[in-house]
Structure formats: C-alpha cells, structure tokens
C-alpha cells in the first residue's frame, strides 16, 4: 500500500511543485494548488483517494480472509466456553434447581423432577435429550445412558395417566376434546414464551401460525396441562406441519393433567369451572384417586436409579450456566466441583504433560533443523549455480512428496527389523538381540519431523545467504581473520535473519503436527495436537478440543511476542 501512495504523491507533486514555487514568490497566504485550493488539502485528498483505491483492491482478499479464516477461528474459540445446551434443553429444570442445596446430601425434590419430566419429554420429541446426556457425560460417566434410557420411558410414564383418564371418560381419547378444552383467548403471552423456549432448544426459528391460542382461564386452572399442550401444539403445527385440532396430544399432556389434579386448589377450581367439557373435567377430578400415586421422582428413579444420585445432580447443576470454564479447566488437568476448582486425580492428568512435551520437542526439532540445514544452505548459496541447482532439487524433492509417504518411509527405515537396524547388525555395531528402538517413541518423532520440516529451514536460510556477498569473507580474511573468526564475526551475523525466519516457520509448523507423531511417535512421542484431533473426530468433545486449541494458540502468540522482544521481528527475512 505504501508503494501506491508514494507513487501517487510522486506523480502529483511536480505539477503542484511549480505552483507552490509561484505562490511562494507571491509571498502570502497558504500554498495553493492549480485549482486554487490549498495544496495541503489537495494532497491529502489525493492520498486518501489512493488509499481508498488500494483498500478496494485488497477488499476481496480481506473479506475472504475474514470470512474463511477469522470468523471460523473465532467461532471455534467460542465453543471452548459455550455451554448453552443444558439451559436450552432443560430450562425449567435449570431454573428449579437453583433453590437446591448442592452441598447437601439429598437429591432435589419432587418439584425439580416435575420440571425435568416436561423438559425432557419435549426434548425427546426433538431428539435433543441425548445431546444433553452426551454433554454431561463428558463430566461424569453414566449420564449419557441415564438420559438415553429415561428418554425411552417418558412415554410410558405419561401413558400411566392416559390410561386412567381414558377409563374415566372416553372423551380423553379425542383430539378435539383437548383442543376445545384448552384453546381460547388471552394466552398469547404463554404461547410466545413457549415458542421461544422451543426455538432455543431446537436451535431454529419456530415462526408461523400455530392455529391454537391457549385459554388464559385454563392456564390458571390447569397450568401444567396447558403448558404441555401448548408445547405440543407449537411442535405439531410448526415442526410436523399438522393441524393441531386433529392430532392426539403427547402423553405429557395427560401427565400434566395428572400433576394438576394433585393440587387441591386445582380440584376446587374445577368445581367452580363451568366452561366446555366441565363435566368431563369434574369426573376426572372426582376419580383422581385412581391416578398413579407415585411422584415423578419415583418414576425417574424406577427408570434409572442414578436419578437419585447426588453426584449426577451436582454435575447437572454445575454445568447448567450458559458459559462455562469447565473445558479450559479440563485442558489444564483441573476440574470443577461443588467445593470449587480442584486438580484432577493423578491417574487422569495428561494435558499439561502433553503441552510441555509438545513445546520441548518442537524446540528440539527446530534446533536439529538449524544444525542440519545451515551447512546445506551454505553449500547451496556458495556452490556454482549448476551444482547448486541440482542440490536444490534434492532439497525440494521430498518437499513435493506426500507427507504420508515420507512418514511411512521413515517407518520402514526405523523399525526394529528395518533398514537402519539391519545395517547396524550386519556391520556388527549392534547386537541382534538388542536392536535399537528408533521409533514408536520420541526419537522417532524427532527424526521424522526434522526431515519433513528441513526444507522450511533451508529455503529461508538459502535466500538470506544468497544476498551475503562472498567478498565480505575474503575481505575479513585479507585483514587477517582466521577462517573461524571470518565466519563467526562476519558471515554468521548476516545470516541470523534467515535462522530467525526458518526457526519461526519450523517451530510453528511443528507445534501443530499430528499425523507424523501419530504414525511414528508411539506413546511418548505424541503431541497435544493428537489429543485435539482425537476430541474433534473421535470423542466429539469439540468444546474441549477448542479449549486445547485456544491454549495452544495463546502459547504460540506468547512465544512470538517473546521472540520479538529478544530477537526482534524486523530481524527476520524470508527472502532477499
């Protein structure tokens, strides 16, 4: 960009230069351009226009980088703290659990389980309950099957109520009965509230005409029933595209009526009620002792006894806020408990070890790349062009070969029955029974990765060395320097920018490598990236993978800053 503006300024100055000379002769007022405006202003405008043009030129690239690079990275980073799924899927439960004592020894009471039933029922209709189960299972094993298994029993729990109601009055089987009973006016607010909750759970808009408005009167008399039916209506109309009045309601609606009838106030209100179907309702209220007597808590515990476990509920409570530090704590071998943040048990600590190992081994690889690459680059830069070109091809050839092929080739070379060991045994350097273990450990990773990353060191070194005139060395020697002094005092300092550039390239590439360590690294030669890959593709714990990735990114940025402070980033040259 600076070139463009310089050029623009350059072209516009000569003309105005004469003008200003004349203006200076006139000897008064600001310097004017040819059109009479102050020269300063004209210049500034020209510059701004050139800048805008330059910006327009790079705009497509900028936009491309933002859309394809920065936005995905930010959204991935956000996953490392995001935890909306629990709250979105079980909003009622999360709210009800606030008043539960996490430190206590008792699981939550019936009111939480009632909420849980209606939350989970609608979640299981949307097939979201298993996702919450999987999310919570990352924190405590067993929760995944608890949610999945109970999800299958939710219908049965509702059917226990349904059967009794249908026995009391066959009208309860009719889709039309429920629609006529519960629809009315005044319940728009409830409808919108439930719509929003469903949309949050389903992660998509639930807009559209439901064809049902809950009656405000019924919402007062039968709150649970109306709420469950409203959920059902929205789901049926928007998601299934069916007509609400023609569909038999969810089992949860029957369970809702059962739950309502447990409230003496409701029974009294039904006595006073005189709207449509009042006789049917009254019959249900009068025969309420035929309904299942067990509470929802008992039903859940019967479905899976872990619902009675305080630990399971603590996990749910701990991971109910929409933002969590849990993934980051996990990435540094810590964990969240009701008593605060604690270290994980020693048998589960792994990430700090891996971070440390990744950094140390990447440094070793960078170091060995410098040692091996420097002489090669020097040769390339100082040999006659023809020989240098041949050597250059030798450097580039592996660079063009597939990474997997090169790594597999190292496997053939390094294994215990491999080429290197065979030669050593044949030469008698190594005993046949004690062949060297060169791979499936850190050694394997270092050897293979040094080879793979070597071109990234050689090429910047070469391009820098190419610019160092050979006459400097000759001059130093003619002034009496020994070979070593000439190299160390004259040549080497000039090649440092190349080392800097190569080191940054190699180190940053090495830190993110995972294919090579996976193949030749065994257990002691794998990097943190291997665990990130595992959590992305295998365990599907993307939150943890994002947290590990974020930490890696921060570490790299910190090292870059440190490098800038010590070596200076201006001192890095990628070419000429």
């Amino acid at each position, binding site marked *: 960009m600076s070139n463009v503006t310089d050029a623009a300024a350059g072209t516009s100055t000569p003309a105005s230069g004469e003008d200003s000379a004349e203006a200076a002769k006139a000897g008064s007022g600001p310097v004017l351009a040819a059109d009479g405006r102050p020269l300063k202003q004209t210049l500034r405008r020209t510059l701004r226009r050139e800048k805008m043009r330059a910006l327009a030129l790079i705009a497509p690239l900028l936009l491309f980088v933002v859309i394809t690079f920065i936005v995905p990275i930010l959204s991935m980073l956000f996953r490392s703290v995001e935890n909306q799924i629990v709250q979105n899927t079980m909003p009622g439960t999360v709210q009800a659990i606030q008043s539960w004592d996490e430190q206590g020894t008792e699981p939550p009471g019936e009111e939480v389980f009632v909420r849980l039933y209606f939350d989970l029922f609608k979640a299981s209709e949307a097939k979201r309950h298993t996702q919450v189960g999987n999310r919570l299972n990352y924190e405590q094993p067993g929760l995944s*099957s608890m949610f999945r298994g109970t999800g299958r029993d939710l219908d049965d729990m509702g059917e226990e109520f349904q059967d009794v109601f249908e026995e009391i009055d066959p009208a309860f089987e009719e889709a039309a009965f429920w629609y006529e009973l519960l629809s009315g006016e005044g319940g728009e607010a409830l409808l919108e509230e439930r719509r929003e909750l469903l949309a949050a759970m389903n992660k998509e808009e639930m807009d559209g005409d439901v064809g049902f408005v809950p009656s405000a009167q019924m919402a007062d008399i039968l709150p649970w029933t109306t709420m469950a039916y409203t959920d059902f209506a929205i789901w049926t109309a928007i998601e*299934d595209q069916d007509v609400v009045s023609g569909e038999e309601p969810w089992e949860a609606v029957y369970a809702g009526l059962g739950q309502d009838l447990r409230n003496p106030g409701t029974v009294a209100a039904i006595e006073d009620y005189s709207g449509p179907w009042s006789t049917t309702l009254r019959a249900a209220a009068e025969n309420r002792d035929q309904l299942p007597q067990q509470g929802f808590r008992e039903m859940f515990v019967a479905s899976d006894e872990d619902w009675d476990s305080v630990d399971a509920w603590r996990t749910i409570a701990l991971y109910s806020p929409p933002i969590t530090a849990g993934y980051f704590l996990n990435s540094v071998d810590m964990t969240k408990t009701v008593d605060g943040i604690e270290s994980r048990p020693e048998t589960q600590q792994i990430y700090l070890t891996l971070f440390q190992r990744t950094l140390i081994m990447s440094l070793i690889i960078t170091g060995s790349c410098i040692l091996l690459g420097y002489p090669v680059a020097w040769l390339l830069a100082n040999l006659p062009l023809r020989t240098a070109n041949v050597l250059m091809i030798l450097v580039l050839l592996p660079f063009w070969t597939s990474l997997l092929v090169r790594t597999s080739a190292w496997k053939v070379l390094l294994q*215990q029955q491999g080429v290197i060991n065979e030669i050593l045994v044949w030469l008698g350097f190594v005993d046949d029974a004690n062949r060297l273990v060169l791979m499936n450990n850190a050694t394997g990773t270092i050897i293979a990765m040094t080879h793979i990353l070597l071109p990234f060191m050689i090429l910047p070194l070469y391009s820098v060395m190419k610019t160092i005139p050979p006459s400097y060395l000759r001059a130093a020697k003619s002034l009496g320097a020994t070979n070593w002094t000439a190299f160390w005092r004259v040549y080497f300092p000039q090649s440092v920018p190349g080392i800097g550039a190569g080191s940054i390239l190699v180190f940053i590439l090495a830190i993110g490598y995972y294919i090579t360590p996976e193949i030749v690294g065994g257990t*002691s030669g794998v990097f943190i990236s291997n665990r990130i890959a595992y959590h992305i593709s295998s365990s599907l714990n993307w939150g943890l993978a994002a947290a590990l990735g974020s930490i890696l990114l921060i570490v790299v940025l910190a090292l870059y800053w440190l490098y800038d402070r010590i070596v200076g980033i201006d001192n890095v040259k990628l070419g000429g």
Partner: protein
Amino acid sequence: MKLTTTLMTSTALTVAAGVASAQEMANDMTLVSWGGAYQASQQNAYSEPYMEMHPEVSIVWDESSNEAVAKLRAMNEAGNITWDLVDVVASDAMRLCDEGLAMEIDHDEALEPAPDGTDASDDFGDLIVSDCFIPQIVYSTTFGYRTDMVPEGAEAPNDICDVWDTETYPGKRSLEKRPINNMEWALLCDGVAKDEVYDVLATDEGQQRALDKLDEIKDDVIWWSAGADTPQLLADGEVFMGSTYNGRLFSAIEEQDQPIAMMWDAQVFDLDGWIVPTGLPEDRLARVMDFLRFATDTQRLADQAKYISYGPARESSAPLVGEHAELGIEMAPHMPTDPDNAANTFLYNYEFWADYRDDIDAKFQAWLAQ
C-alpha cells in the same frame, strides 16, 4: 409413540412412492465406507449389481467412515449434507442416532424380509442395536501371531492370556491405542469372570486393575491406530502377535500368504452397518432407501462374504455363504461366527462404552503417557 409412528409411516410412504415412480428418485448417490478390501467387497456385492439394474444411477464412494461422526456433525452444522448413506461401526451409529444426525429406520418397512417371509427385524435380531442402524456384517477384533516365531517346544498360543505370557512367547505385541477391548482382555486375564467384566470395569478400582494388568506388558507393546498396522507389523516380523480386525488377518494369511495364524480366543464381536443421515431431500432419500432395500437383502449380504471374511448380519444369509470369489476356498471356516472359531467369544457392550468411553479413555491416555 404416535409422533414417531406418523414419521415412520410418512417415511415409508415416501419410500413406497419412490419405488412406484422412478422419476422422483435422484440419480446420484454418495456412499461412505472404509476403503480397501472392505469397500471393494461392497462394490462387488451391492453397488455394481444395483447399477446394472439401474443404469441411470451413478454412485460415488467416499472413504471417510473413520471420521464419519465428526464430518456428519460438521455437515449438519453447515446445513449441507452431501452424503447419502454411511457405513459406520455400531457404536458410532448409536452416537449419530443420539445426536440426531442419523435417521430412525423402521426396519420391517424399509428392508426386505427374509426369503422365508421372516420380518427383517427378526432376521437381524439383536444386531439392531440402535433405531438408526442397519446391520451389515459381524466382524471381530482378535489376535494373529507369527507361526515361525513360536518358540521351539512351545505350543502355538491359543489362549488370550498368552498375550501376557512374555516368557513363553517372547517378542512384541501390537494392541490398539485405545482402551476398548484391551481393558476387557486385561481383566479376563486377571481372573475376572466373563459376565462380570463390565461390572468391574465400571468401578475406579476395576479400571486401575485393568491398567495394572496392561502395565505388565507395556514395554512389549507397539500401539496401533489403523487397522492395517498389525498385519504390516506381523508381516515385517516386528511383533510376535497383535490384535486387529479378523478380515485384515484373513487377507494377510490367505491372500498374501504370510506365515501368520489366527488365535480366535476371546475374540470381540462388533457390528458394522449403514446409517442414513437426517435431512436428505426427498428425491435423494427415495433413492437411498431403494438402494438400501436391495443392498441389505439376504442374497446381497451373503454375496459380500465371497470377498471378505466378515459374517453377514442376517440369520438367513448364513447358509448362503459360499466360496471366495478369487481364491475359491470355502469362506465359512474363516467367518468369526463359525462354531470352531466362536468357542470363546466376548460381546462388546455398547451401552457401557457409550457411558465410560470419555472417562476411561482419559485414564488410558494418561497411563500411556506416563
């Protein structure tokens, strides 16, 4: 449940309508599988005969099954499902079903009954471990060993605990770099009864016990992560014995003539099959369901066993298993389900691993890194 039934019926209706008029079916299909000999067997047994019947159809294969779960999730988030039918192992099918990424299937409606009229769901029986899963093959993870490396005077290994017996059988072992199967084998050899393995493994002490047992041979183990690793390590003589999928060992032994033999003891059965991603447009769904009905019928499943030594998932296919298409050897004795091979088998517990996978894996990896 009412809603599910409605969904099912509408799916079935779509399928029925699709069968009735071929115009509504898409002609391009992307199938996802594992590559290699396994995918070749599917091409030979399923897709080529299907394309002969429907010359207008073109099928593209994608070899991404081992990262299918992650990729399907990414596709779902991007709102662009490019796959039509995906071959996954049963545990992945369960997870995809849990995540809502795979479609629930009414097996009786969508699949062909057995030739004697038995419903598909009865013909597959217990192998339908998830509502979204259409079983295809039974494979097993088992051990192979170098016959020429068995020490003189020693019997060939025939017991899972021979893996731990490094005195009688020196040499390295190759085991998969994940806890599944290894933990079970370790407990079995530590004296836990077969039907109590998962109860023990559910406790912290049991997990530690399994790791302690594995610790005995930790220095002698090369850990593999790709199914092709163990056959290669055996062929190179790097290891004396190693675990892998039985079909891989079959091809090393019979097709490549390596001095390797099978040790079927305590082989762990697992399943592989199809899932249909959710959210396919109707014309593509109709085509997939049509293909699926064809590719999972009794004869097609039996045909696949001509090319690879994995047992067909339908009970009615077993009697139809014949000879290898090229080698001409009887395939039945090479099937993991053959009575001689299945004398002592171990059944993988999907529920257990769905729950404990993350927890035990963390401990296993921490133990490996020590």
